[in-house]
């Protein structure tokens, strides 16, 4: 089976120049791979570096050492050393990301926030909106909210807009940073269904889930992040 994402020996630390250059090691020796059609879950307590790993895989955090090999189009690229332009292309076509919080833009409707990633990939706006409508309906977001900008929505409503935005495209790799954190049971089940559909479509998923029920329902495998504790390797 195809393995679109291979992480090897990745290390990350933060150097705080405003605190006399103190270095905070985050993770080291991070190595794992994700196969198409599988959902792996990053496990470990808060502060173990789970989110940092996801952010490095999305190019949002810089990588100090190691390689992140991604199947991008017909070739392989190392995201850890890729140019900004390549990272943008990977985000557009290969790696999708559902963040914990929605970063809202003033005056853009929920429907267009959801449709935007498809339009950016060159899709037709009306087709994208139709798909956005069906996802928002599936996630039980009241129809009267669709035309409104999500800035004033509740946490759970924003989260559902965010999930719809993340799931609307057909990226072969999808990163999920606690997508169910502020959802009720009914909508958690919808997310579990959406993830199952992505798996069936051959998408490689990597997520963080603190909710044990959701985690058990979606995870094929748990990757224990404490094994990559930076202190351990250094000591």
């Amino acid at each position, binding site marked *: 089976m195809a393995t679109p994402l291979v992480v090897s020996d990745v290390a990350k630390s*933060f*150097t*705080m*120049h*405003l605190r006399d250059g103190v270095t905070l090691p985050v993770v080291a020796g991070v190595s794992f791979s994700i196969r198409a059609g599988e959902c792996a879950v990053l496990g470990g307590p808060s502060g173990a570096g789970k989110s940092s790993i996801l*952010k490095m895989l999305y*190019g*949002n*955090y*810089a990588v100090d050492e190691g390689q992140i090999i991604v199947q991008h189009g017909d070739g392989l690229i190392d995201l850890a050393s890729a140019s*900004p*332009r390549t*990272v*943008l*292309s990977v985000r557009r076509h290969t790696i999708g990301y559902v963040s914990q919080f929605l970063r809202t*833009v*003033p*005056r*853009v409707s929920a429907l267009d926030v959801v449709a935007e990633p498809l339009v*950016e990939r060159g899709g037709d706006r009306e087709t994208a909106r139709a798909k956005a409508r069906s996802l928002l309906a599936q996630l039980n977001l009241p129809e009267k909210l669709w035309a409104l900008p999500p800035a004033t929505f509740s946490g759970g409503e924003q989260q559902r807009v965010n999930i719809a935005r993340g799931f609307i495209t057909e990226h072969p790799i999808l990163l999920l940073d606690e997508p169910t954190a502020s959802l009720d049971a009914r909508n958690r089940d919808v997310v579990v269904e959406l993830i199952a559909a992505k798996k069936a479509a051959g998408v490689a998923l990597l997520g963080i889930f603190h909710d044990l029920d959701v985690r058990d329902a979606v995870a094929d495998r748990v990757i224990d992040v404490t094994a990559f504790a930076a202190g351990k390797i250094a000591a």
Partner: protein
Amino acid sequence: MTDEPLLRVSALSKFYGSRVGCENVTFDLWPGEVLAVVGESGSGKTTLLNCLSTRLLPSSGTASYRMRDGQWRELYRMSEAERRFLMRTDWGFVHQNPADGLRMTVSAGANVGERLMAVGDRHYGRIRATAVDWLSRVEIDEDRIDDEPRAFSGGMRQRLQIARNLVTGPRLVFMDEPTGGLDVSVQARLLDLLRGLVTDLGLAAIVVTHDLAVARLLSQRMMVMKDGRVVESGLTDRVLDDPRAPYTQLLVSSILQV
């Protein structure tokens, strides 16, 4: 996106006597890409913008631009007339103060129409129709077309300046603090408008700003300048979420949380 950049800048420096304006700046800009240049006052970002837009000539270094016919031209070797033609047709420049980019004593419609006439359009009806269309795209009512920008509010003037710049379908737009000096609510509207126009038209833009939130909203890529030098560059969200250079960390940590 094509595989060739639109603008290639190499080792660009500008000195004012022995003082450094900007030093050794190198980057490529691709079609459709928005690059934010951030830094505090005096960091050299406006000097850089003025050199790139050929309003100033650099002390050393090169900048090449890919013309519409695909030919690469060295900006600082073009004649003054050629540069001015580029500036009027294929480029736009949005000033912080709209009065610097508008003709304050001619009507809003003429401000937009003038750029069209500069590219050879002579048909009055067509020019006026295009002007009306552009005024509506920047959310200025049609019945204001014959008013002078002197009678406009700051936010409206800025939107008019944007319409004037974009009407010729430029491929590259320079912006110097486009939202500076505006109320926050007016700023949000303008940013949203700019963001939409840049995406819809596939514009490349270089935006100078000291406001990191503006940079985050508008740009994909960012350069941080201090004392005339680029101290950090990369993807906008990477630079803001994982700043590496001491100065960038200072800038990011200085943002007030609302």
